[in-house]
C-alpha cells in the first residue's frame, strides 16, 4: 500500500521539523472550550515571526473587512478558533518550507497553492459554509505532500517532474518513480503532526473521485478549487494536462457548469487580496 510506504519514508526523515511547541499549544488551545481570544494572543506573542505570518494569512483569508486585522485576538473573534488554529499550522508550514532546494520553482508552486486557496474560498462562500476561511487553509495546504517531496526527496521529485513534462499524468509518473503519490506523503505527515480531521482528509484525498464520507464537502471543494486554479493558470500546476474532475465531485461541491464563469471571475478578483501574501514569496 502506497500510504504505508509513505509513512515509512516520513518516519525515516531525520531532520523533519517538529511542530514547534507554540503551534502545538495553539491547536490544543483552540479545542479548549474555556479558552479566550486573549489567551491565543498571549501565546502567539511569544513567537513574533509566527505571529507575523499568521496575520498575513489572516488578512488574506478574510477579505471584506474595512481595515486589516492587526492582532490575533481580533482574528479569533472574526474567524473563529478552529480557523485560527488551522492558520497557525499553515503559517508554520509556510515558514518551514517556503524556500529550499534551488532546483525547483517554489514561487510557481506556492502561487498554485494560493490560487487553489482563493478558488476554495469562493466556492465555500457560495455554499455558505460556517467557516469560509477554513477552506482557504484547505486550498493552501492541499499539496503538503509535494512540499515535503521537494524538500526531502528532491531527486525523485525532479524525475517525476521530467516525466510529467514529457506528457505523463502525474499519478502515472508518481507510481513509476516512487510507488506512492504526493497525497500519501502529505497524509502521512498530516498524521504525524496530528492535523485536525478535515485538513488531513483534504491533504490525503483531494483530486481523487474517492471522496470520504466524513469531510466529503471539504474534499470535493478543494478538488474542484484545484482544477479551477489550474485552468486559470494561477501558478504552475501539477502537469501538462488538465486534471479530470468527475460529475459527482463537482456536484458534491455544489457547482453547476453554468456557475463556472462567475466562479472563475470571483477567483481572479480574490487573488487581488493576496498581494501582501505574495510578497512573502519574494
Amino acid at each position: 500500500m502506497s500510504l504505508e510506504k509513505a509513512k515509512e519514508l516520513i518516519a525515516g526523515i531525520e531532520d523533519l521539523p517538529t511542530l514547534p511547541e507554540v503551534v502545538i499549544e495553539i491547536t490544543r488551545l483552540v479545542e479548549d472550550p474555556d479558552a479566550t481570544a486573549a489567551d491565543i494572543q498571549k501565546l502567539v506573542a511569544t513567537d513574533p515571526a509566527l505571529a507575523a505570518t499568521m496575520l498575513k494569512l489572516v488578512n488574506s483569508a478574510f477579505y471584506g473587512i474595512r481595515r486589516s486585522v492587526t492582532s490575533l485576538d481580533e482574528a479569533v473573534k472574526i474567524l473563529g478558533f478552529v480557523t485560527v488554529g488551522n492558520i497557525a499550522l499553515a503559517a508554520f508550514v509556510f515558514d518551514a518550507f517556503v524556500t529550499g532546494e534551488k532546483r525547483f520553482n517554489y514561487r510557481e508552486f506556492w502561487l498554485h497553492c494560493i490560487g487553489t486557496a482563493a478558488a476554495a474560498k469562493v466556492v465555500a462562500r457560495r455554499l455558505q459554509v460556517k467557516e469560509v476561511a477554513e477552506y482557504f487553509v484547505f486550498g493552501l495546504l492541499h499539496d503538503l505532500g509535494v512540499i515535503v517531496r521537494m524538500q526531502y526527496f528532491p531527486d525523485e521529485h525532479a524525475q517525476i517532474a521530467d516525466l510529467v513534462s514529457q506528457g505523463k499524468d502525474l499519478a502515472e509518473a508518481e507510481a513509476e518513480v516512487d510507488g506512492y503519490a504526493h497525497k500519501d506523503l502529505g497524509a502521512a505527515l498530516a498524521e504525524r503532526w496530528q492535523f485536525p480531521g478535515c485538513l488531513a482528509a483534504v491533504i490525503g484525498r483531494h483530486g481523487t473521485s474517492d471522496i470520504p464520507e466524513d469531510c466529503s464537502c471539504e474534499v470535493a471543494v478543494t478538488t474542484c478549487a484545484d482544477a479551477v486554479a489550474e485552468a486559470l493558470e494561477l501558478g504552475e500546476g501539477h502537469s501538462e494536462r488538465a486534471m479530470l474532475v468527475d460529475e459527482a465531485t463537482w456536484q458534491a461541491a455544489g457547482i453547476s457548469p453554468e456557475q463556472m464563469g462567475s466562479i472563475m471571475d470571483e477567483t481572479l478578483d480574490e487573488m487581488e487580496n493576496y498581494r501582501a501574501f505574495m510578497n512573502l514569496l519574494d
Partner: protein
Amino acid sequence: MRKVAIDDLEPGMILSRDVDTQNGSRILVKGALLSETAIALLAKRRVLDVWVEDKSAVPDEAPSEEDSVDEEEAREALEAAIARLERRFEGRLVNPWMRALCEGAKERLAVPRFWREAPQA
C-alpha cells in the same frame, strides 16, 4: 482607433488601449479580443467606454509602428495561449463542467494577472 461606448461593444472587437478602473486597477490589456464575457466584465466594473481598433476610420493620429507591433505580439501571445489551453484539455472534455472550465479559462486569458507583471523600474 476609436472610442466606443460600452453599449455599442461587440464580441470580436479588439482593444487598442489598456482599460483601467477609476482607482487604477487594470481590467483588460491592449490587444485583448473582446468576448461576451469580457464585455460583461467591463459593464460590471462600470466602464463607460473603451478604445478599440478600427482600421476603416481615419485615425486621430497615425498609429506608430511600435503600436502595431505591440498589438500583433499581443494577438500572437493570445493565440498561443488558447492553443496551449486546448492541448491541456484534450481528452478531458468529458462532462459539462470540464467543458465549462475550458471555455471559461479561454475567455479569461486576456485578464491581466498582476503577479505576472514585471516589477516597475
